[in-house]
């Protein structure tokens, strides 16, 4: 690791933590004139056990549900004190702190138009407390509070479309990214930092501990999520979802099964017998989504 990294080694993240890699990439792009407000979660716990810290930038954590509000306070304070110029303010949250408990504070920050980039590291469950269901958890994933069982196929509900909901606030810039698409991610971080007003990036962050896959497959899983079309790389300025720009079109979408079977959180869809109806349902939803995206793309031509 280069010595000028702002997110340094030696933290307590699990081997193969997708979020840790993502944070590093975001800060590489943001640079040293950056202040981060961080929600409670894995990221805070694994990087700041007193008296150590993995952060070489000013960093503040207050609670679980309020990174957006804390960042808002930093924003106006620096403005008042005449120290705002040239400073990036980032808010970091996990999916729990963003989709669920911190959603109100996030919405408030977006509506007030703060020049803040909010980044959600989405690992699709409450990992810090032990893999519990979140509104970000995808359909049929087994978690400790939506366990697969004789009468359960895992989470019954669909994943909440957080980035679209955020974009509906009519903010300056919304994007999705993965660590497997490094250049795409960095470009999006740059755009998010450069626009005036609120911006939001959802970074797909595979979690070997929570998704139960070998830790060396984190980047591969990110790639497979994109190649199967489960996770769409897109960006948007403003609120009009018809103007969404897909930044990566898989040449030929792989079957979702290939992505799902890599992770033990979906193992019950394959064993003891293959749950073809569930797998078909997931595939159909992905197909529908891409049909819509292709139509939008045609219209835009």
């Amino acid at each position, binding site marked *: 690791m280069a010595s000028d990294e702002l997110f340094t080694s030696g933290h307590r993240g699990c081997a193969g933590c997708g979020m840790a890699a993502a944070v590093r990439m975001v800060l590489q792009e943001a640079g040293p004139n950056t202040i981060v407000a961080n929600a409670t979660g894995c990221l805070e716990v694994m990087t700041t*056990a007193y008296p150590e810290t993995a952060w070489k930038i000013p960093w503040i954590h*207050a609670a679980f549900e309020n990174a957006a509000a804390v960042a808002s306070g930093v924003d106006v*304070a620096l403005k008042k004190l005449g120290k705002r110029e040239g400073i990036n303010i980032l808010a970091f949250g996990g999916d729990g702190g963003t989709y669920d408990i911190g959603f*109100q*504070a996030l919405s408030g920050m977006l*509506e007030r138009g703060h020049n803040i980039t909010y980044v959600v590291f989405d690992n699709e469950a409450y990992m810090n407390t032990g893999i519990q269901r979140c509104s970000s958890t995808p359909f049929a994933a087994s978690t400790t509070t939506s366990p697969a069982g004789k009468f359960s196929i895992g989470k019954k509900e669909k994943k909440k479309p957080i980035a679209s909901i955020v974009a509906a606030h009519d903010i300056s810039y919304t994007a999705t990214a993965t660590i497997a698409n490094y250049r795409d991610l960095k470009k999006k971080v740059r755009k998010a930092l450069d626009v005036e007003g609120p911006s939001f990036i959802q970074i797909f962050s595979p979690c070997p501990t929570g998704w139960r896959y070998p830790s060396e497959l984190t980047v591969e899983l990110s790639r497979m999520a994109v190649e199967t079309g489960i996770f769409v790389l897109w960006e948007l300025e403003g609120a009009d979802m018809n103007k969404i720009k897909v930044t990566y079109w898989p040449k030929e979408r792989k079957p979702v099964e290939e992505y799902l079977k890599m992770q033990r959180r979906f193992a019950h869809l394959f064993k003891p017998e293959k749950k073809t109806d569930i797998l078909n349902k997931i595939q159909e939803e992905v197909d529908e989504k891409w049909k819509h995206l292709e139509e939008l793309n045609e219209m835009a031509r």
Partner: protein
Amino acid sequence: MGIKQVVKGNFATAVAAKLARVDVVPAYPITPSTLFPEQISTYIANGEMDAELLLTESEHSAMSAAIGASASGARVATATASQGLKLMSEMLFIASGMRLPIVTAVGNRALSAPINIWCDHQDTIAERDSGWLQFYAENNQNALDLMLMAFKISEDHRVLLPSMVGLDAFVLTHTMEGVDVPLQKEVDEFLPPYKPVYTLDVKNPMTFGSFGTPAHYMEFKYQQWEAMKNAEKVIDEVFSEFHEKFGRKYEKVSEYKTDDADIIILTMGSMSGTARAAVDSMRREGIKIGAAKLTVLRPFPFKEIKMLARKAKVLAVADRNISFGFGGAVFAEIAGTLINEKEKPMLIDFIIGLGGRDITQEDFYKIAEISKDAIKKGEVEEMVHWINLKEVK
């Protein structure tokens, strides 16, 4: 000398924030404190105040933003009440744990259920363990003065803890009183700009709000304990400096006709004036009674309460709050304070004025009567009494 103005209590707290040259006001309106953000926004709109007003979507976010702003080096004030303070509660503990000298005016209002917008002290009393200094105003002049002093006390590097200033819902928040509003120049001399020890600064990056393991957590808490102890002394210093500068004397515990009193009634907030009037009436009838007012609840004025207790046969505590399953919270703390005293008065607790029930001189007569009865019998038969309670069917 300041300018005499006839103002509401909420205005007094807002003008204090203006005079204190507060940098950031994060706020979410709630009855009976709404006039505070309204007044601040008017000041800003008219160019009378150079501050950032951050209108958040909840009290929780208001206090969260206060934390972010204070950690950035800004002087921060807000106002809330009742349910709003409860929604902030999580962040109150974090503000004090992070040693951020935020000042909050609280329009003391009852808690739901049933929902009620009128005065009692339950909201701030329930936050007495939050690590905030607590001041209680008797009148609008107090509200203004205590707000100003709260900044100076909180920001002292021996303290670095947040403060809340309680003023009774409606009785003070919405009632017009004559207030001496100090001149900006005088306040500037009294209250220099906030000099934080550490801030979020890209030139000197630091980690705020880190993870405290069992190996370190207790020492963090001990430092808060020590800071609160230091505040005892700093409050005395600031009260005395304020007296010199503005001519108004403040005490943690103010006594009235206590020197030869058999009974002393202890009060907080706006009921204190009524208590003194009742003392005067009863004195005319030959009853040896006095009153004392608690202005500072945190840090608790142990020394002053011990001195006070030596004077009376009965210390009657008027609690405008209730800790269910025990009694009034102030009573409990006074009992705890006196536990190791060789000689102590009988202590009787009176739950009074909950949810805005009027507190009248008659109520203090009733308290005196029960106290006299205890002196006559030489014992306290019932520890907790509810005053002016209707028959509950």
